[in-house]
């Protein structure tokens, strides 16, 4: 069995999210070192505040300030901080019921005394971040606090320049492995060969192979070398320049049925003016150095293929 291929894959996205009026007031308040809750119809104060009552689903709007001090209602000791978490050293995750609130806020507790210094019922206060932008991370963390209830600022929940959105970067790291069929396909590409797989049931040859015949639902395993020449079955003319791609527009992107394949793959057509590319054009791969897919396909000079020979592959 050939070596299993692996490659790092990073999925990263800056999610831009708009805020409802209650979320906007809460996060703007954090920027101004004020903690706001929202009052439910039955008189409870939810911190962090939400737009709709979690029990009755009624729309909520009555903002009330709560103190920056509170009580730990449960905790868990994080021995090793993970990427993105509020502190880069061991800390306690805590749910804190702030003074004046009826629900818990999730955050980190900086406890230099270690896990034995933390307990449910302990008193804590907000430690504000030095730079604040209107985000939950404007609370840097909580810290132990023994001096009673913090005074309120008297805020009515209205601020200059309220934040209306947040940008929440998300990044996940993977080690991608393509599996049996695609690993074999990629290994062959490194030798400038295109290898598909034949379905044992319907005998179709799939390129690139995905390991299963989507018609028959069975594993494909018989390897079949196809091409290198093929036929343009259909194409489009690209007029939009792709970011980070060093290809002049317009260019042609085509579906190409390699000889012996029962499924067209796609590739760029070069070596011919874009407006002379046509269905049935015979092409061959132009390989780039360093393995991987052909850089593009170019005309072979053969007569065009007859429509009947590729009409099933459109």
């Amino acid at each position: 069995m050939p070596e299993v291929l692996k490659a790092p894959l990073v999925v990263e996205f800056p999610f831009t999210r708009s805020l409802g009026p209650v979320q906007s007031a809460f996060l703007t308040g954090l920027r101004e070192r004020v903690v706001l809750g929202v009052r439910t119809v039955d008189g409870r104060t939810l911190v962090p505040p939400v737009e709709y009552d979690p029990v009755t689903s009624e729309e909520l709007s009555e903002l009330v300030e709560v103190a920056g001090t509170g009580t730990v209602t449960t905790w868990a000791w994080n021995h090793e901080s993970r990427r993105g978490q509020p502190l880069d050293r061991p800390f306690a995750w805590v749910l804190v019921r702030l003074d004046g609130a009826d629900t818990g806020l999730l955050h980190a507790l900086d406890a230099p005394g270690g896990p034995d210094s933390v307990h449910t019922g302990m008193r804590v206060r907000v430690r504000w971040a030095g730079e604040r932008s209107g985000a939950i991370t404007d609370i840097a963390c909580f810290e132990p606090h023994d001096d009673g209830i913090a005074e309120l600022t008297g805020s009515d929940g209205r601020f200059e320049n309220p934040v209306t959105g947040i940008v929440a970067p998300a990044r996940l790291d993977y080690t991608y492995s393509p599996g049996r069929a695609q690993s074999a396909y990629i290994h062959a590409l490194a030798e400038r060969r295109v290898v598909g797989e034949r379905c044992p049931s319907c005998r179709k040859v799939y390129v690139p192979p995905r390991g299963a015949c989507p018609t028959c639902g069975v594993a494909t395993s018989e390897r079949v070398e196809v091409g290198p020449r093929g036929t343009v079955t259909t194409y489009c003319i690209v007029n939009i320049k792709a970011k980070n791609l060093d290809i002049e527009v317009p260019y042609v992107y085509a579906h190409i049925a390699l000889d012996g394949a029962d499924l067209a793959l796609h590739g760029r057509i070069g070596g011919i003016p874009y407006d002379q590319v046509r269905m049935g054009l015979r092409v061959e791969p132009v390989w780039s150095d360093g393995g991987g897919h052909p850089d593009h396909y170019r005309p072979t000079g053969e007569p065009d293929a007859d429509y009947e020979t590729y009409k099933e592959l459109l």
Partner: protein
Amino acid sequence: MPAPRSAPRPLRDIAVVAFAQTDHRRTSDELSEVEMLMPVLHRVLAQTGLRTSDIGFTCSGSTDYLAGRAFSFTMALDGVGAWPPISESHVEMDGAWALYEAWTKLLTGDVDTALVYAYGKSSPGSVRDVLTRQLDPYYVAPLWPDSVALAALQAQALIDAGDTDEPALAAVATRSRASATGNSHAQLRGSVPRGEHAVRPLRTGDCPPIGDGAAAVILAAGERARELCERPAWIRGIDHRIEAHGLGVRDLTDSPSARLAAERAGAFERPVDTAELHAPFTSQEVVLRKALRLGEGVDVNPSGGALAANPIMAAGLIRIGEAAARIGRGDSDRALAHATSGPCLQQNLVAVLEGDPR
């Protein structure tokens, strides 16, 4: 007029008639998702003699976030043989919810059989971090609280409430992995050390193994079920309920959503002899036993449960499959199967399965 105490009987008798699963492993990097899934689909079809073209409805559960592979569920469909086009659906949830959708489809009477499958490859990514992306994106996700940390907050709340302690949690882990010695598909079996604290109070032994796996179930209605299976596991009731997303709004020592789902599924009308609970963390079994009123006589997780194998997105469907298989073997007459989703048992599904009288 007072509401009737018992749950309404389903409009149609629908049963689990076949179940198959992979061996669950820490990594399966030599296989793509469809390559991992396909043998399970073939096995579950072979159990009934059905072919893809005989299946009335197909529904799957998975998430692209696990392996970081966009639209992986469309690739997985290659393994079914979806041409000519089949009647098909997908949920970005555990396969237990795909089974729920298939069950409702069967209730309509439009179809008599359904194929349900689920798969999850946790090995390419860091599942603790991946699961943070399901949290409230405004107030919680920016702090990146991982799945073990959130479960640990729940465990500490249970300890504070006097519902459990660290030795009791360790006993749950020991019992589960001892039971798993009889389950050749399990990933963690036999004697597993309690380990160091992962996030205190939870130790590594309180946490589920991280792994890759897949499972599939076939449902059939009425007489069709009796034709396909010697002892169908009839779904007497199935329901799912969800709680608020705000962790600080919930009582983490209780699971009102699991209790309500169980009530609606008819679980409390007569005792069950078996319960397959989807409790990835030892502390969550404590919550579920209480909410589902499981007495000492109930055999809880004879398969080893999620502490023995937890292929994410499939582990809940496997609970239903394991309960049905136990009924099929004659080891159970009435079993409860449970699946969960979200942090700290936020969402819960309960199914009650029964075999015909012997």
